[in-house]
């Protein structure tokens, strides 16, 4: 298909470049992050509470929860494993600008083709960069305390890496840059304080750090005003039941209490941004519940 062919062309034409680029492209071709939707799933320790219901009040001590979960809760937890698939055929998007294009800071930003990440398709029409999450945590689960957690939000060749990031509230997002030109990171949250700060060239320390205090109802845009094509999405969330699909559209959400749960399926290219606003899924305890989410081509708004 068109997209794959293009990737091959990319591969063959760029192989002579630096090893960094080659490795990157290789990874892209091999179906890794580059061009396949850079995804960084936060390492989240899920602390399931007691779901039996009768000891909710008594489990006020934070230390008590894990042990209870280990003993009584584990067998009642389930998970959802699924895939988001584009239903219908779609011509791959052309790059935003190709290598060598006359754009701002072209020596860095137009070193390679800059992909249009609004719709990234993987194997078997799997859609990458789709947020699958619950807008409200199911009753009985504990809200997430991620104050000591650090996430990386990087930039290279005038692209944000990853393109989609789930950010637990309270955690710190370190904004890095691997480019020799300056960037700025401008977030547009709805319920949190927005940030707009310059990121110096080659900042590997992450002098800019972003923390979200509140969960948002849907992913929020993060942009660079210097390079108007650069964009990414953050989903600040206060529980652990969120995931971003990988390059082939796969996702997994585990640690769910058994029962029916409602997920929101959000994608930037979907008309109205939601592929599904409320997708009910029956989760059985123990085994993973497999689901496939069909994303009709007619839903696309590009």
């Amino acid at each position, binding site marked *: 298909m068109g997209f794959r062919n293009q990737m091959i062309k990319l591969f063959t034409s760029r192989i002579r470049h630096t090893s960094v680029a080659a490795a990157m492209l290789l990874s892209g071709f091999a179906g890794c992050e580059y061009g396949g939707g850079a995804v960084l799933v936060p390492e989240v320790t899920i602390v399931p509470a007691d779901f039996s219901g009768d000891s909710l009040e008594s489990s006020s001590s934070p230390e008590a929860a894990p042990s209870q979960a280990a003993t009584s809760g584990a067998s009642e937890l389930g998970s959802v494993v699924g895939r988001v698939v584009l239903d219908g055929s779609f011509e791959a998007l052309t790059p935003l600008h190709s290598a060598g294009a006359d754009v701002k800071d072209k020596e860095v930003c137009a070193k390679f083709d800059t992909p249009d990440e609004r719709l990234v398709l993987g194997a078997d029409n799997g859609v990458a960069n789709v947020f699958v999450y619950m807008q409200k945590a199911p009753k009985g689960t504990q809200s997430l305390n991620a104050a000591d957690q650090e996430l*990386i939000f990087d930039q290279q060749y005038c692209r944000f890496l990853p393109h989609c990031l789930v950010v637990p509230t309270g955690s710190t997002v370190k904004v890095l840059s*691997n480019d020799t030109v300056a960037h700025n990171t401008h977030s547009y949250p709805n319920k*949190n304080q927005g940030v*707009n700060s*310059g990121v110096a060239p080659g900042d590997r320390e992450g002098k800019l750090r972003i923390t979200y205090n509140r969960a948002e109802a849907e992913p929020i845009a993060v942009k660079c*005003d210097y390079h*108007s094509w650069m964009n990414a999405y953050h989903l600040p969330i206060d529980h652990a039941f969120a995931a971003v699909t990988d390059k082939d559209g796969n996702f997994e959400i585990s640690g769910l209490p058994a029962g029916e749960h409602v997920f929101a399926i959000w994608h930037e290219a979907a008309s109205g*941004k939601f592929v599904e606003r409320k997708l009910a899924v029956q989760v059985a305890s123990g085994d993973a519940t497999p689901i496939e989410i069909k994303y009709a081509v007619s839903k696309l*708004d590009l």
Partner: protein
Amino acid sequence: MPATEHFFRSQKKLHLVFAISCVVLLASVISMMVEDYADPWRAYQSTNFKLQAAAKKVEIGRLRTAEFEANLESIEQQKQDIDKSLAGLKSLKDEVDAQRNVAVRHIESLELRLRNENALRDQDRALYDLAIRDNLSDERKELLKKQFDLAQVLCDATTLKLEKGYSELQNVGTAATVEDPEKAASLSQLSALEKSSVELTKSLAKLVADVDLAESALQKIEPSGWMKAKRKFMELPIIEGFNGHLKVTQDWLPELHQTLGMTEIARFDRCRTCHMNMDRTAPGNLPAFPHGKASKADDIAAWVAENKFPHPFTTHPNHELFVTSSSPHPIATFGCTACHDGQGSGVNFGNAEHTPNDPHAAEDWHHEYGYHPNHFWEYPMQAERFQESTCLKCHHNVTELGVHPKFGASAPKVYDGFNLIGKYGCFGCHEIYGFDGGNAIGPDMRLEPQTAEQEKRVAEDVTQFAGKYRKVGPSLRHVAAKAVPGFIEYWTEVPGRFRPSTKMPQFFNLTNQEDELAQAFEAVELAGIAKVLLADSQPIDLLKPTAGYEPNVQRGKQLFSERGCVACHQHEAVEGTTAEFGPNISDIHRKVSRNADNIAFSDWLYTWIREPTRYHARTRMPNLYLDTYTQDEAAVDPAADITAFLLSKGEQEDFASKVVDPLTLPAIVKADGVEISPLDELVTLFLRKSRFSEDAVLDILKNKTIGQPAAKLVGDERVLATEDGTPVVDDAEWASRKLEYIGRRTISRYGCYACHDIPGYEDARPIGVALQDWGRKDTSKLGLEHIEEFLHHHGEPDGSSTLERVEQAMSDANSGADGGQKLENELTQAYFYDSLIHHGRPGFLWQKLRGPRTYDYLKTETKGYDERLRMPKFPLKEQEIEAIATFVLGLVAEPPAEQYVYTPTERDRNRIEGEFLLAKYNCTGCHMVELPTITFGVDLDEDVFPTVLSDADHVKGLELLLKIRKPKAALTGQRKKFVIDGEEVDLPLASFHGIRMVEADAEEEDPSFRESGFDTWETLDFGNSEDPKRVLASSRITVTDAKMVEYVPARGGKFAEWLVPSLMKKEGSLTSDNRNLAWQAAPPPLYQEGLKVQTPWLYQFLLEPEKIRYTTVLRMPKFTLSPKEAQTLANYFAAVDGAEFPYQELIPTDTDYVAEMQDVLTTEGLLTQGESYLDECWKSVNGPLCIKCHSVGARKYKVSDPKKDIQGPNLNRVQQRLRADWVQLWLYNPKWITPYTSMPVNFPHNNRTQFPDLFEGDPEAQVTGIRDALFNYSRLLEDVGPTVYAPPQAEPVAGEAAGEE
């Protein structure tokens, strides 16, 4: 005659008469005294003492809480315990006291000695100094020096002793100096006890202070014990005359004169004799006795418990503005009657000349107080509905009564009236001249000078002041180019027929023109007006789009929406437009003339849109800079597109077929049977008026000549004459001349030029009665005639009886049912009706505005046609009539003494005049000048997070922010109960200014989950002094519908608020990033504009607006402001923000400052030897950062995607445009100033590596450096020239980006 024993009258009888008359006199004296003593004010005052005592007792009760009593008891107990312990140590205490006395006496004697020794030493010093002056011998000098040194030694010794004495006194009674451990223990116990005793006494005093104060106040209000008996005694008749506590309260205002009869005398106001609590406030500046209806009318306890008090015991309802000593109108300076009118010296209800607010209240008062109107008192109290009219005596600018930073709209009704008169242009016919010679006597509402000569005349005469108002109607100078045939007649006859929302009043088809004669004459007059306007219309060069340009209707609609047209106009094709400043132009396609060669286009409309002043030099419509631009390599002419859009709704209308041709009218048959055409009859009428004899007129009509050459005639008659005075040959031409004659007479008669610029009428005088003193117009001069009869039988717009309407209102009111606002409106009509029947000014005015021609009722039969009333009917609503009446009744031309007339400070004057201009040019149509106010219930733990500064933030930036945007207390001090998610919670209320940046989810219905996000533009403090919770400007505050208490929309900026969502829709998504960009594209809120821009620049910008931003979809248009207006408006913004004006100091441009920076930074090690401060600054600007979005130092900004890239304003203007502090804060953190900006924090405080060699990488110095480079921009560009600075690159990228493998 010899004396006899005989009496002329019987002694016995005389004694009897004397005795009886004594008794009668005594009785009458007693009855007089009884009556005097029974004055109602005494009863009010007694009640008030009881009321105040009851309130005081409640207050004491509130202070003496259980906690208070417990505290009191515990302190007293502790004190007793200490006293007991002290008693045990009495002997020790006596001993210590004795020691202390000895030590004190010792110190005192030493102090005395030291003073003496000091004096002697000073004397010795003086002698020595004199010896030096007099050049005495060296020995002598040495001797004297020795003496002085000796004296100094003595002083020093005594000083040492004294210091020792002090320290000994300190040690008296302390354990440290005592060796005996037992005694030492007792001593320390004693000193501890004494210390706590003092502290206890202090805390006791602090605890009971409020209660003591309240109790002593109560004692004064309601004494107990012996004082109570004295109080009772002092209330006795006669005795009470000797300074009793019940007495008449007088406010004597010797300089605030009142007019009585023909003379001016000092004012005595005794109103507070009954209205005793007018100026009483409670802590927190709350009214101590707010008005209200308590559940039990006669129970003082109920009043106090419910905090609702009846008249006359209440506090002034607007005590922050009036009466209290801290208000701008303290009672001691202004009294009561200066504002309220009435008889200030009266001490009972009737004498005070109270005035009821409507006839129903009058009936109630009649029953309760025996009220009846007193026609003999010239200035009875103002009815409540007209209360605001007296403000005009002192507030001649009026604007401050409607807009005020502290008091808001303090007199909204009179301000409405003022604005309505401005809106409808009443002043065009009725001059409102605010000056008498050089003295201000009231509001000044006059037309501005119309010609250069008039302007010159005013400028040369110091006693004259130019008017400020423009004619409210469009110019008719070039009307032939605009209107389609027949439109003028069709429109003028009934303007509301074509455009229901028009401001133009109706002159024709009114109640005094219903007869056949008038109907025929009207058609002639209308045709005449059109004839004159078209004949006199001057040629105009219309603009045309480039030949071959194809206008795009769809794009025209979009440009119409985006370029600001809908900030003033409504158009039904553009959804959500509500502006009423300009006309609703939905139907404009029907009336404007089209091009002869292209019926789909109108060059006139194109010209008007593109360059309004070409058609009308004094129009308020601005030039929107609709210049041709290039899009996708094709030229776009926005004015042509908008023209095409406006005309696309349909074809022009054939008005010519809808109007009557006056020449086809049937002839009038006169009383003598002679038939004459209406045109000739009207010509006869006007010629006769111009003193042509009956025969002369007949001759003129017959011979088609006036018999004289045109040049010899001065009046309108000259249009009937040919140049040489010969008869007109052609019939059609003669008819046309007659029509023009009638047209000119009609324009003069109706004063069309009051609102329209008409060639030839520039010097014409206003035709109506001047209004500047109408509020004092002699009521006997009001022409009331048959109006009562008219209102009896007709009166209402539908022909029904006004009397019946009023009677219905009165009976509804008497029924006691709560009729709400509707009944109140009906009673307002009843009030006016009643006033009219009693020949009152308000009633006359009311009917004059409702039905201006109704005063001609039954009079048209006897009046000449040209003598009929001419006042047109304005499309006014009942409430608007009341507002206008309030204003006009306040025009009394009786200014009080100079010190009472409101004379604003320079700052306030600029603010007030600026507000007037904001309204005049509709600046607030586009721009917010006050942001929306949001009041909500705040959960302090969940809803607001105090701003935490990170390593990246500049502390200096914060200091600057707090200087520019001083923190505002967000908590209002009130609390409210809310139901959130089914639970009731009690939350404190907070209030702030901010813009809604997140709309609540449309699909969410539960108010607990409907969340709006606001960006605050001010620094807020959600805490108190003990626990501050500071939230900096640009913070997002999320408020759910459930917690929202009040959302007060912004003042101004309706267009911006409309434009933002429509731009977002165009972009396709309603996300936060799009909203930020849409706000950048819309007219900016002018929040703290005065602190931002330099006043001289703003002045220039207002006159000649340059393009500043590249992100906007529209430009600031150019208004026809006069230089004076531009100056006032520029000053206004500085004045409201408390900024410096009209000039600003620009420190960064100062060479001394630059030299100082050079030194300071060199000392700090941030500049090395040989580096020039400004050069380094220039490098900072020319580094790789600013160029990302701005063109810098002759280098062009690089565009990647013209649609998406953000280009910042040109930097070369910063030095003229912005203030230095503001620029510095902007560089520190732009969001703190404008939350929606795209400009990032470019120099985070923790980033020392981006320009490591500039100021040693110090970001703070870089910020100041950039600012200083911007303020020396042109100098640096000339001295240094274009520069490219590239910071030394860090080592090749060390790590791999995350997400790579």
